């Protein structure tokens, strides 16, 4: 067995000099890239949101799409529910982390924001 290492063949030399460094590089690359693979499905700003609507911790009597569409005509333009300007390039109009506005003074409360 030891004789193999005393006079290593060309194959052993190649495996030792190239194979082992390659294995080390592969292991390091795996450690670097693996966290990214686990976040592969993560949405990034600017990308289109291609997921179905998700409602967490709620019970609705009807379908969420129907509930969203059930907007009384008055609500769309009511002063209590201001609509921020919607443009293709939001960042050009509203700086990042801004656009927080106070909302309804009457019924529902809360706040609106854009980013």
């Amino acid at each position, binding site marked *: 067995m030891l004789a193999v290492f005393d006079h290593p063949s060309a194959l052993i030399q190649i495996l030792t000099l190239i194979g082992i460094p390659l294995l080390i590089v592969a292991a390091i690359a795996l450690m670097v890239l693996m966290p990214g693979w686990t976040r592969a499905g993560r949405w990034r700003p600017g990308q289109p949101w291609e997921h179905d609507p998700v409602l*967490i911790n709620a019970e609705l009597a009807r379908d969420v799409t129907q509930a969203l569409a059930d907007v009384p005509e008055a609500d769309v333009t009511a002063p209590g529910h201001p609509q921020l300007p919607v443009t293709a390039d939001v960042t050009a109009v509203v700086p990042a982390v801004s656009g927080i506005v*106070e909302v309804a003074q009457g019924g529902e409360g809360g*706040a609106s924001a854009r980013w």
Partner: protein
Amino acid sequence: MPAGDRVGPLPFSLAQYAGLERALARAEQASGLHFTAYIGELPEGRASAVALHRHVADPATCVLVAVDPDRRLLEIVTSAEIRERLSDRVCRLACLTMTSRFVIGDIAAGIRDGVIVLADHARQPVTLHTDEPG
């Protein structure tokens, strides 16, 4: 969408989703309010969020956090009944917390952090010392 139904793949990892559910449940325990999160399209902006809020099981005690990632729109909707406990000012603070996470693309963590802020302010600590004689 009926309770708990989810269509298609989740936008979050299972760990993120579990963390979000846990945060919503803890917020509910701490404050007594019902916290709900919606992530998806809001066609009419705030009006859609308000419409959704009106259709939850108990809108009077419900705090809805609605996020439309495509339009980069965040809406927090509370009811008239709980505005005393959860003021619009606090909602704006939560908006700031959330949007600071959203800008780096972390929707789940943003909602989680915002809900924590909301629950913290809506919490009603037990009064241990009152003027009433024991």
